[in-house]
């Protein structure tokens, strides 16, 4: 795992971060739930929880879908290419490329559309940036920079967990397991049993 230069993080003592969607989007509940699920992946392993708020201007994390040049100097480039970007703490901006064909639910690997992108997979990655993680060279990690279309990757890997716990500490309820069925991570010795 890596951090941004200077290792920026949310202030010590931060327990809850609020997030809001750009009010111009009018996202439906199922799409919003995808982001809630993505935030929960990180809450499970560390000390910070996330609450949605309708107050966009005061939210810690501001989520929006934009096309092309959207004013932050990081223009989106159309289908595929760059899918999304997020800023390091405590900026809170989380932008996704409106040009993508986002699949909200279901098995994206079964998609007949070669450009289909799994929304939750991208959201989990970008939340890592919002919390202070940079890119990882470990291909299985959520914080690996690339993700192919029609691919789903939402479970944090050991590298992601080590990184975020280095920044904020561990969720006291975290027992080393991020899913009940797919993995069993022994946190005592850093050895993962599958």
């Amino acid at each position, binding site marked *: 795992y890596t951090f941004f230069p200077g290792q920026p993080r949310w202030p010590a003592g931060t327990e809850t971060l609020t997030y809001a969607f750009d009010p111009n989007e009018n996202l439906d509940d199922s799409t919003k739930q995808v982001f809630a699920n993505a935030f929960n992946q990180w809450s499970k392993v560390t000390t910070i929880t996330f609450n949605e708020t309708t107050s966009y201007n005061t939210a810690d994390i501001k989520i929006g879908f934009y096309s092309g040049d959207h004013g932050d100097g990081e223009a989106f480039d159309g289908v595929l290419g760059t899918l999304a970007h997020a800023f390091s703490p405590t900026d809170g901006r989380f932008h996704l490329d409106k040009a993508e064909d986002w699949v909200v639910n279901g098995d994206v690997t079964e998609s007949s559309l070669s450009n289909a992108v799994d929304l939750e997979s991208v959201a989990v990655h970008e939340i890592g940036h919002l919390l202070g993680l*940079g890119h990882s060279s470990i291909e299985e990690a959520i914080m690996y*920079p690339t993700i192919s279309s029609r691919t789903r990757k939402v479970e944090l890997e050991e590298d992601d967990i080590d990184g975020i716990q280095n920044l904020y500490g561990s969720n006291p309820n975290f027992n080393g397991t991020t899913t009940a069925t797919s993995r069993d991570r022994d946190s005592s010795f850093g050895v993962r049993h599958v």
Partner: protein
Amino acid sequence: RFFPDPSSIPTWMSNNAPPGAWDGYRNFTGCSPGKTYDGLSKLKNYFQHFGYIPNSPSSNFNDDFDEALESAIKTYQKNFNLNITGELDNTTMNYIIKPRCGVADIINGTTSMNSGKFNSSNEIHTVQH
């Protein structure tokens, strides 16, 4: 566009998927250092955007396969666990055109991805007698 699930994607759309933003980079597969290729400056912009070519105004890029590009490719290959050849081989190009996050891999010249880690080949090995 949002699709509630894959089954909601119309067939006509599946059959007419637009090319990805970086698919054109495939044309650079096999390009070699020391030569000039039309449009190679776009690939330099790519590497600059993600932090692999530092301190260069993008408008100044030419189409030469120069040392800066070769060095960027080697650093990229190291970060992505590829064979470090400095060449735009097929495997490297397949990674370059993959969809990705817009956040740079190298920020202000620093990273702790593979390329920023201590190179074990520089270690001094000692043997205790």
